[in-house]
């Protein structure tokens, strides 16, 4: 027993130094990570390729003479078409920022009330939210379409915003986090005469920054990439968001479009990666609490 323990500790020490085993592990992981990152590297390279490199045969992976020409083509040349590309960017940025902002506030407020107020008659809510995590949004898409249609907001920004505000996923994450928040802190502020509104904004939200920053990241990523909602709610070209626009541009398949497509793909992909990179440590801190205790 003692022997095996000693050998275990020894082997643990040995692992700290560079051994053949670790070289192997690092090599495998670098290969795996290269596989996951390769297409993204390709997105970056292609966006800056001049037209002759885009059409080269045999194709080349990396860019030789980087240029901004593709972005000019996308922003200026395509503006001859009915809707300028900048409009799609605006549509996406506008609807996504409003959705993210209100999603975070609504789910934080809701989760705070559910966890810390012990409201009578609300015991059923959390199990229902847990259940809602277990089916995809596609299930509710048809009635949602009827409701949105009944509200008369088809083909408006509201159709892309309102149905997505009450996200079960966001509520779940906020609830997990608010449960950890000490009740004593809330009580002592109440005794000091702070009202609930102040407590929520001045005490709870500042200390829950890692949680809602994570929510901002996920909500941004999900909505930025969302393809299904604009597909069914938006019918006019001018109201389309980036994913739909990108599909239209790439579907053209003409050679002149190759450059514009690669630039559009770049613009579609980079924001989420940049935001995640900035927030990475906060996100990891939060995700510790994401488990479901069954």
């Amino acid at each position, binding site marked *: 027993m003692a022997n095996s*323990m000693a050998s*275990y500790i020894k082997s643990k020490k040995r692992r700290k130094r560079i051994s053949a085993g670790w070289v192997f*592990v690092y090599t495998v*992981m670098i290969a795996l*990570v290269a596989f*996951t990152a390769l297409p*993204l590297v*390709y997105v970056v390279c*292609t966006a800056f390729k001049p037209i002759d490199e885009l059409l080269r*045969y045999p*194709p080349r992976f990396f860019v030789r003479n980087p240029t901004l020409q593709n972005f000019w083509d996308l922003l200026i040349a395509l503006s001859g078409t009915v809707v300028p590309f900048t409009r799609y960017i605006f549509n996406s940025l506008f609807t996504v920022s409003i959705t993210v902002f209100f999603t975070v506030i609504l789910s934080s*407020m*809701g989760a*705070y*009330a559910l966890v810390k*107020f012990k*409201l009578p008659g609300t015991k059923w*809510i959390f199990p229902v*939210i847990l259940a809602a*995590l*277990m*089916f*995809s949004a*596609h*299930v*509710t*898409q*048809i*009635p949602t*379409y*009827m409701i949105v*249609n009944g509200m008369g907001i088809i083909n408006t920004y509201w159709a892309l915003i*309102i*149905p997505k*505000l*009450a996200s*079960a996923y966001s509520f779940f994450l906020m609830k997990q986090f608010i449960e950890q928040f000490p009740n004593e802190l809330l009580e002592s502020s109440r005794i000091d005469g702070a009202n*609930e509104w102040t407590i929520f904004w001045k005490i709870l939200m500042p200390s829950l920054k890692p949680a809602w920053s994570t929510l901002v990241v996920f909500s941004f*990523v999900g909505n930025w*990439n969302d*393809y299904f909602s604009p*597909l*069914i709610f938006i019918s006019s070209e001018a109201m389309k968001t980036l*994913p739909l626009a*990108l*599909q239209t541009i*790439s579907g053209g398949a003409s050679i002149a479009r190759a450059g514009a497509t690669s630039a559009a*793909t770049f613009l579609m*992909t980079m924001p989420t*990666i940049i935001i*995640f990179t900035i927030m*990475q*440590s906060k996100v*990891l801190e939060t*995700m*510790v609490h*994401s*488990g479901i*205790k*069954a």
Partner: protein
Amino acid sequence: MGNLQTAESKKWLGSDLKKTRITLSTWWNKYGIGYMFLLPFLILFLIFTVVPVVVALGTSFTNYNMLQAPRWVGINNYKLLLTDDDVFIIAIKNTFTFALISGPAGYMASFFAAWVINQLKFRKGFALAFYAPSITSGVAMSIVWLYFFSSDRYGFINNILINLGIINEPILWNMDTKTIMPVVIFISVWMSMGTGFLVFLAGLQNVPRELYEAGAMDGIKSRFQELWFLTLPLMKPQLLFGAINSIVGSIGVFDIAVSVAGIPSPNYAAHTIVAHLYDYAFIRFQMGYASGIAVILFVITFLLGRICLKVFSSKDIY
């Protein structure tokens, strides 16, 4: 006597009213603001999540084209779907083929990667590179992967295979009914590995170090024993969360399949349940029939989710 009784009861009633008024106002002071905080979320959640599930169930028993009033048809839609609609059977088969391969493959790969990366240096860099694909847009990444899987000689993979002399003619990756599904699965696994990964990585960081030392005392000899006896049981909540995400994601496969093969795909080779739903709901506007598909989708994901809850139940430990 009678008068007295009424006076008495009036008195009673009065004090009772007063009492309820007092309790109401204290009740409001205690809970009112709480309800106000909860209400905006709750109303939207009811309208756009809870009510739609019920409405979908109701609509599935009708014929409804959004112009005329819905007409009750009983279980006719389900009968047609399950016995008469060959394309739906193909869609179910495709979705399950997809889910059975991409779900477990992505899930295990992401857990394994999280477990290894958690023990490496430059953890943050590895984590970012591994996670990045899952926060990219399915539409954008399908376009990129189609450069690799392009059906002519310009495609990287055809190019390499031709140069190596493995094939003579370029493979029609996204047009040949035999290769469409494998391509969709490949791209999806690549994209979905990150979702569980992040949850797992966070969970792994949360396992206390002392536990491993205690485990060493108790005779745990290798990293794999450590993983099996200590790490996995402690991570059940994260494993469950990851499993549910993975099921919902893989049963709901749609945008990658559409971007790779179009709708309808050649010979319905990439036709999934959600694609069938989209086709009937938003192209043909047969809402009753499409709701039937939605209900079947709901039942499938929900049952699988329940199974996961049973498997990863953490009641028996600690």
